[in-house]
């Protein structure tokens, strides 16, 4: 049989992406919570002599769409192709419901019984031959994470069959599934494992809340510890001992005051290259992303990856549900926020896990204003931190208060109510070292590939704008707002302009301005609030539509202006 398209379809969090990545070798983010994949991903594989397109479809419980992610899945099915139905072997009953729906569609189907390794220690015994007989299509036990069974799955793809079951009602399907399960599955009694005891403890409010506080505290502590150590022991010495002498020589060769020296090295501070303040492409342009931001990106994504693969975040979502309701969201909105702390772009994409327009609008506004990305956090910590830890605390506390206040207000002002949470909580799984490292590498290389060029471009742009006196022009125009309302020098406009491009560079630009501590705090806070970076902005336009995004933008500007004034008065 000839096929050009293979769809991977299954319930949420059954391991579709893991199998996708195994089959195609493509790198996709795999985590242990429902809703990791919000958009279908395509990849290719060779089947015989043919190139076949493989599509990883967002998880769905039914073929009648009840939310946007499911809608994507259903639309994909309209076109022809072969379906690999990924089934969670530890939860046959619910998964087979989708299988039966697929079989009624008359599409060729092959079933992968995924998470096969889990069935053993869960005391579940499944007769694969018998399921095959009942369903009439090939059924192959697999384990996406270890790769077990994948070869057989691919080998048996040609056996996939369309069997055109007659259409039946839901209750008829459940009845049929009941009969199948009775024959193919045997459960043996077993005791609670340690992980399961932990699962219970972390979801019960009395024990769950202290555990959540502990996890968050430890996560921050470890992220800071790793980040600071990397900077102090590796990146600082690397730049100071190896890179600095080279640059000093280069600077001399280029000649002080020459255009190239100005662009590449920047201003010499007391006759020396200063990584924080010189602002050349090769000095500050490399120092900010690599020595200030990268170490924190590394430590953040390491810890994030571990917690994601463990399956902790859905539990945090349930615990935070109450608080989030006051902000017009439900608990699961915490997932885009957490991802947004790494980089607002994946955070903005994850807003798709929310169903309604109102929620999406609120989540997008809150994230764009009050969730700084790790690159920005790192530069704020690096720059404001020099003046004392409590000033860093003021910046982040202001952002947090803004998050809460804005949520409360939007929830009051916008018509409608916050929808309720309804989500499956995955079992804890021990994170696998290789999987965590792979994911970390994907995210790090993503940062180096996508962010680094932008940072260098940003610094280059700044220097050109300065050379052409364009920044002086804007500084003159915006001086009333900057100096009268916010108490900042008019030169700070340069940072605000670059902030559209990259927030980390923008914060870094406050460095050479010789600001007072108060000005530095105000500047950093405004930079976090006034506008998301261009990459996030583009994604949000796509997700919300241009009209809603214009509203969000207006809110951001108003908030930025008022926060600046308020901080200027209070501090």
């Amino acid at each position, binding site marked *: 049989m000839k096929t050009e398209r293979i769809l991977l379809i299954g319930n949420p969090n059954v391991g579709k992406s893991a199998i996708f990545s195994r089959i195609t070798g493509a790198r996709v983010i795999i985590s242990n919570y429902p809703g990791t994949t919000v958009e279908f991903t395509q990849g290719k594989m060779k089947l015989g002599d043919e190139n076949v397109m493989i599509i990883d479809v967002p998880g769905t*419980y039914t073929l009648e769409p009840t939310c946007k992610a499911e809608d994507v899945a259903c639309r994909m099915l309209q076109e022809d192709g072969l379906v690999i139905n990924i089934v969670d072997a530890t*939860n046959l009953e619910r998964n087979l419901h*989708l299988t039966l729906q697929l079989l009624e569609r008359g599409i060729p189907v092959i079933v992968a019984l995924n998470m096969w390794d889990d069935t053993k220690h*869960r005391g579940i015994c499944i007769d694969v031959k018998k399921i095959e007989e009942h369903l009439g299509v090939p059924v192959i036990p697999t384990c996406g994470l270890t790769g077990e069974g994948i070869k057989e799955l691919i080998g048996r793809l040609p056996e996939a069959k369309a069997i055109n079951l007659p259409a039946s009602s839901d209750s008829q399907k459940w009845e049929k599934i009941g009969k199948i399960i009775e024959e193919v599955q045997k459960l043996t009694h077993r005791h609670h494992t340690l992980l399961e005891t932990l699962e219970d403890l972390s979801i*019960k409010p009395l024990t769950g809340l202290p555990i959540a506080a502990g996890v968050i505290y430890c996560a921050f502590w470890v992220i800071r510890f790793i980040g600071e150590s990397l900077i102090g022991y590796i990146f600082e010495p690397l730049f100071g001992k190896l890179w600095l002498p080279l640059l000093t020589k280069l600077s001399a060769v280029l000649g002080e005051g020459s255009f190239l020296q100005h662009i590449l090295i920047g201003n010499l501070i007391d006759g020396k290259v200063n990584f924080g303040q010189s602002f050349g492409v090769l000095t500050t342009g490399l120092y900010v992303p690599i020595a200030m931001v990268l170490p924190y990106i590394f430590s953040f994504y390491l810890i994030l990856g571990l917690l994601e693969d463990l399956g902790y975040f859905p539990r945090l979502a349930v615990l935070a*549900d109450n608080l989030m309701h006051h902000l017009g969201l439900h608990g699961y909105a915490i997932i885009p926020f957490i991802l947004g702390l790494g980089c607002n772009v994946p955070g903005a994409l994850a807003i798709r896990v929310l169903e309604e327009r109102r929620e999406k609008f609120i989540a997008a506004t809150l994230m764009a204003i009050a969730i700084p990305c790790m690159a920005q956090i790192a530069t704020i910590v690096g720059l404001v931190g020099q003046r004392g830890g409590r000033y860093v605390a003021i910046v982040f506390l202001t952002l947090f208060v803004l998050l809460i206040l804005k949520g409360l207000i939007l929830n009051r002002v916008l018509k409608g109510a916050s929808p309720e*949470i*309804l*989500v499956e*909580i995955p079992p804890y799984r021990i994170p696998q070292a290789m999987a965590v490292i792979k994911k970390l590498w994907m995210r790090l290389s993503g940062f180096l590939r996508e962010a680094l060029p932008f940072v260098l471009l940003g610094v280059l742009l700044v220097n050109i704008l300065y050379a052409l006196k364009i920044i002086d022009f804007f500084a003159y125009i915006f001086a009333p707002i900057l100096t009268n309302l916010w108490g900042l020098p008019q030169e700070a406009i340069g940072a605000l302009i670059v902030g559209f491009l990259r927030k980390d560079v923008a914060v870094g630009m406050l460095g050479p301005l010789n600001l007072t501590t108060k000005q530095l705090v105000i500047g950093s806070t405004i930079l976090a609030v006034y506008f998301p970076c261009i990459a996030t902005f583009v994604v949000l336009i796509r997700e919300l539509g241009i009209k809603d995004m214009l509203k969000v933008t207006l809110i951001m500007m108003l908030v930025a202006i008022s926060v600046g004034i308020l901080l200027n008065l209070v501090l």
Partner: protein
Amino acid sequence: MTINLTEMQPSEIGLVKEIQGGYGFTKKLHSMGVRPGKKITKVSSHFWRGPQTIDIDNIQIAIGFGMARRILVEVER
């Protein structure tokens, strides 16, 4: 006796009797495995009308308070 899901005690076991709600709501719950006749165990109940978590076929599901109130359960007391 018949109570709603929010009234169950932690670790109490019951049988789902009825889901009161529109087509979309019942359909979604059914497809997640919550449907009449299924045995469920209450896991936890969060403060101030917070979400309710239940265990059904070894899968945990968190359900908002308002939704949980519309799930009727038969328990032995």
